[in-house]
Each structure stands twice: as structure tokens, then as C-alpha cells.
């Protein structure tokens, strides 16, 4: 056991060192951009996994939280000159509050009823933001240029600071997920996932734990949204609230392996570069080939790798022993 733990920690250490030195070696900004997106999607997939993989609530509406995070910090910055770091926390809190407000009435929904409820929720939020004059409606929001620097959460000369910030966010999300999975709460989540009714009979406050899972997940997703707004400096409902973003998160988690800590990271590592590069290589003519391949892969993965790559390899490892 001790041996396994040290082995795991050394793997994590190596991965971390590689991640830290990567942008110093590979200075191509296009590649750095893809890695930044990888970290961002991995972070959101880890957040999805807390409610989807552990607590069994398959959300297809995470784009709403992503958008709420992006919009809250941007709006506060534009209208009240609130520092983006504080705006990010505010965005997380707003998203967690909205998540609780929508999660409470949905607390008895299971399986695909819950999944479709989250789609409906995501679409409603997108339609509202598309028509909400105060936050720019369909035109979106352009962020003002600040001086730049860590305090402003805005960097003009290099992608490196964004790279390290989002890497730090990903690590925070992973630590949160690790702490949950090893705590009593994590076992409650799994019990609820296995069977709502049995969990209830065992005296677990199902509604309460489901709400906690949703709120933590929404908070982390909104943080990624604020990061994204600071990174691209322009947001509109069509770029931050699309159902496609929510679907991608589900897919990443499933491909990597839902319900494991590193699964979503593995999934993002495969899928984000793949979708970025197919988009760059094949998507430029608007022929739909990139999305065609993407759709085909989703179908194949669900048919042949429904438990994800991580589950596949850990099973292989067990069998080898």
C-alpha cells in the first residue's frame, strides 16, 4: 500500500514538473493556447465529475455556470470596476446560488430526467442572456483594457501567466475532488449515485448532499468562466453558453472515466487537442468534417469504451497483477 502511494505521488510529481516546464520549452503560442484550453476544460470536467461521476447527476447544463462566471466578473469589472479576482469569487457564488435554486426543485429527478432538466435550464439561461439589455444582450461584453499584471488578472505580452493561473486552478479543482472523494461526503455521494432510495433509507440527507455537489461543481465551473473572460477579453452568449460546451464536458469525463479523480484530466488530454486540431485542419471551410468526426467518435466511445480510458487501463492493470 505504502509502495503504491509513493508510486502515485511520484507520477503526480513528474506530471506536475512536466506541466510547469512545458511552456518554457515549447514557446509556440498556438500550442500553448491549446494547452491552456486543455487545462480549462480539464478543470471544468473535474467539476462536472464531482456532481456527475461521484453523485450521479449527469448535468448537460454546465455552460450556464461557465457563462454566469464569465458574465458576473466581466459585468462587475465594466460597470463597477471590481477587481476580476473578486469578480471571479462573486461569479462562483452567483453560480452556486443559481445552482442551488435550480437544483432544489430538481432534487428528486434521476437519470435522463435530470439530464434533460439541465439542458432546459442551460437553454433558458442562454435565451435570457441573449435578450438581457443590461449585459449587452446578443452583442455580448468587451472587457476594458487594464494596465495588466497579476493584480488585474490580465496579461498582454505573454500567455505564460494565463497558463500558470489555469494550471493552478486545475490543481485546486483536483485537490477539492480528492478531498471530497476520500471524505465521508464522497461515500454519501457514491451511495446516492448507486441508489437514491437506499441512500435515503440509510439516513443520508439526499437533497442536501445533492445540493452541495451541484454548488461545488457550479462554483468551480464559474471560476473557469471568469478565467476565460479575462483570457479572451470578449464574451457573448453564443460563445460561452452553448449546449456544445456542456456536451463536451460530459464527453471528456466519460472518455477519461467518470467517477475517478484523474479520469477527466485524461479525457481532456485526449479530446481537447483532438477537437482543436481537427477544427484547425478540417474546420476552416465550414464543411462540417471536424464535427462529423467528433460526432462519430462520441458514438464509438459510448459503444466501445463506456467506462472510459482510465477505467479501461486500471482494469487492465488489475488483471495483469
Amino acid at each position, binding site marked *: 500500500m505504502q509502495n503504491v502511494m509513493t508510486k502515485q505521488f511520484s507520477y503526480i510529481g513528474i506530471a506536475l514538473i512536466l506541466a510547469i516546464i512545458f511552456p518554457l520549452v515549447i514557446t509556440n503560442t498556438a500550442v500553448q493556447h491549446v494547452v491552456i484550453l486543455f487545462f480549462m476544460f480539464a478543470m471544468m470536467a473535474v467539476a462536472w465529475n464531482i456532481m*456527475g461521476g461521484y453523485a450521479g447527476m*449527469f448535468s448537460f447544463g454546465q455552460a450556464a455556470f461557465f457563462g454566469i462566471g464569465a458574465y458576473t466578473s466581466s459585468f462587475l469589472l465594466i460597470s463597477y470596476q471590481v477587481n476580476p479576482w473578486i469578480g471571479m469569487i462573486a461569479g462562483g457564488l452567483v453560480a452556486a446560488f443559481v445552482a442551488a435554486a*435550480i437544483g432544489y*426543485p*430538481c432534487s*428528486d*429527478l434521476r*437519470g*435522463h*430526467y435530470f*439530464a*434533460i*432538466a439541465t*439542458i*432546459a*435550464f442551460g*437553454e*433558458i439561461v442562454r*435565451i*435570457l442572456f*441573449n*435578450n438581457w439589455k443590461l449585459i449587452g444582450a446578443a452583442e455580448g461584453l468587451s472587457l476594458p483594457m487594464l494596465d495588466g499584471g497579476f493584480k488585474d488578472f490580465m496579461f498582454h505580452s505573454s500567455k505564460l501567466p494565463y497558463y500558470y493561473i489555469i494550471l493552478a486552478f486545475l490543481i485546486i479543482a483536483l485537490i477539492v475532488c480528492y478531498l471530497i472523494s476520500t471524505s465521508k461526503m464522497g461515500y454519501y455521494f457514491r451511495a446516492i449515485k448507486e441508489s437514491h432510495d437506499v441512500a435515503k433509507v440509510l439516513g443520508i440527507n439526499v437533497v442536501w448532499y445533492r445540493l452541495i455537489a451541484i454548488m461545488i461543481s457550479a462554483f468551480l465551473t464559474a471560476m473557469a468562466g471568469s478565467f476565460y473572460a479575462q483570457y479572451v477579453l470578449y464574451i457573448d452568449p453564443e460563445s460561452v453558453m452553448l449546449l456544445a460546451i456542456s*456536451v463536451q464536458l*460530459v*464527453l471528456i469525463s*466519460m472518455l477519461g472515466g*467518470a467517477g475517478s479523480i484523474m479520469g477527466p484530466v485524461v479525457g481532456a488530454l485526449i479530446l481537447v487537442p483532438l477537437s482543436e486540431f481537427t477544427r484547425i485542419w478540417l474546420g476552416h471551410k*465550414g*464543411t*462540417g*468534417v471536424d*464535427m*462529423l468526426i*467528433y*460526432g*462519430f*467518435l*462520441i*458514438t*464509438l*466511445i*459510448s*459503444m466501445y469504451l*463506456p*467506462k472510459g480510458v482510465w477505467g479501461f487501463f486500471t482494469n487492465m492493470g488489475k488483471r495483469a497483477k
Partner: protein
Amino acid sequence: MPEQLMQQIVNGLLIGFMYALIAIGLTLIWGVMNIVNFAHGDFLMVGMFTSFWLYTLYGIDPLFSIPICTLLLFVMGLLIYRFIVSKVMSGPMLAQLVVTFGLSIFISNLAVYFWTPDFRLIAKPLLSGTWDIGGVLLSIPKTVASIGSIVTSLFVFLFLKKTKTGKAILATEMDREAALLMGINTERINSLSFGIGAALVGIAGGFLSTYYYIYPQVGGLFGLIAFSIVALGGFGSIEGAFIAGILVGLVQTLGGFFFDPAYKYAIVFMIYLITVWIRPQGLLGW
């Protein structure tokens, strides 16, 4: 004002009948297999394009190509069930949810690849124009489509209640294990239901193509609306889907009329949330 309101009610009914037909196919699949078909709207799109190409290439009016659309979609449904959906039936629920999502993205982008994302319209269908009934305008293609929807729904209803195969489908819907014990080949029932569900949107697509824009992403919205209708009507209930389709059509147009048309689909999605919250079994579910 009352005339305008009458007009909105008529519009709501006309779109509602179309929604009903689309949702009946979805609820059949959902009820029998407990599988959500996210590609349902894309099946509709395939039906619309089939109708469009039969018209453009061979000059066959949509009204006459509907049987071809129906048959084609039926076969497509059977094949998709046989080679894709049946493979995930025993898998984890997440895979069941995601597989038809992938299918949806694949089918709609296949259409983009072959036919570009452009919007098309059937230039001169046999049915066109409007009737003016006391100041209320009644679109002729929409009216014929509504009649088609009523006739088809009635036909499906009678098929399920009166024929042996239909009864087997209903039995499977109620209790799969018991149906299996009674000697019903549930695997065959599954593929048949999937085929019929797809065939029904083939009919809907044929009618819809006489008056609606045809483009690769057209199914997305219709598919999502159908979820709200199925929830409201009760999962698996044909009668429920029919009534709920009409209700949703009315709510959507009247909501747009009294509030703001920009929010009409938000109101439709609210219906889903409110239904599953207050009455999860829907209007006619048990």
C-alpha cells in the same frame, strides 16, 4: 385585438399539431426502451431533406413523397437501433445518454458536409397560400399538415390498441420482464419501436418541408421542444404527447404574443422543468 388573438391561437394550434406528431415518435421510443433519443430532431431533418431532394431532383411534390420519407426513415431507425443503440442498452446510463448525442452531431454535420449549412425552401409546392376565414388567416400547407398529423396519430393509436404487435409494444412499455415471460420478443419490439418512432418524424418532416426552412441544424430545436412535450404528456403516452403537443404550441405562440417573442422557447423549456417538478409523471402518465 380579438382578431389578432384568434390568429395567434390558430397559429399555435397549427404548430402544435406538428409538434404532437414529432413528440409521438419520441415518446414511443422513450416509453418502450427507456432511452432518450437526442437524434430525434435530426431524423426529422433527414425527412425534410429527403422530401426536398425528391422535389428538386425528380419533381415529386412533398405530398406524394411522404410515403418514401416514411419508409426511408423506418429503415434508418431499424438500422440505427440494430447497429448502435442496441449495443449500449445494457451499458452504463451515461453511455446511453451520450450515444444519441454523438449520433445527432454526426447526422447533422453529415448534412452540412453534403449540402452546406444553407437554408433551403421548396420553391413551389402544390399546397400554398392561405384561407381567409373572417379575418383570420389559415395557412393551407400548415392546415393540411395538421390534418396529416391528426390522421397519423389516430392511426398509431389504433395500431397500438388493436393489433397484436401494437399490444406487444404496449406490454413491453409497461413491464419489460413480464412481456419477455409472456413470450414477446422484446428485442424485436425495441427495433420496431425505434423504426416506427423514426418513421413518424419522416411523415412530420415531409409535411414540415412544405412550409418550413430546410437546413442541417433544423432538428435541434424541434428535438428539444419534443422533450418538453413528452414530459408534459407523460413519458410513453401517445395520447399525452398529442394533447401536450397542442398545448405547447398554444403556450409558445400566446406566450410570445403576451410577453415577448424572444422568450417563447424559454417558456417551452420552463414547461419541462415545471412539469417534472410538480407532476413528474406528466398529464397522462402513470
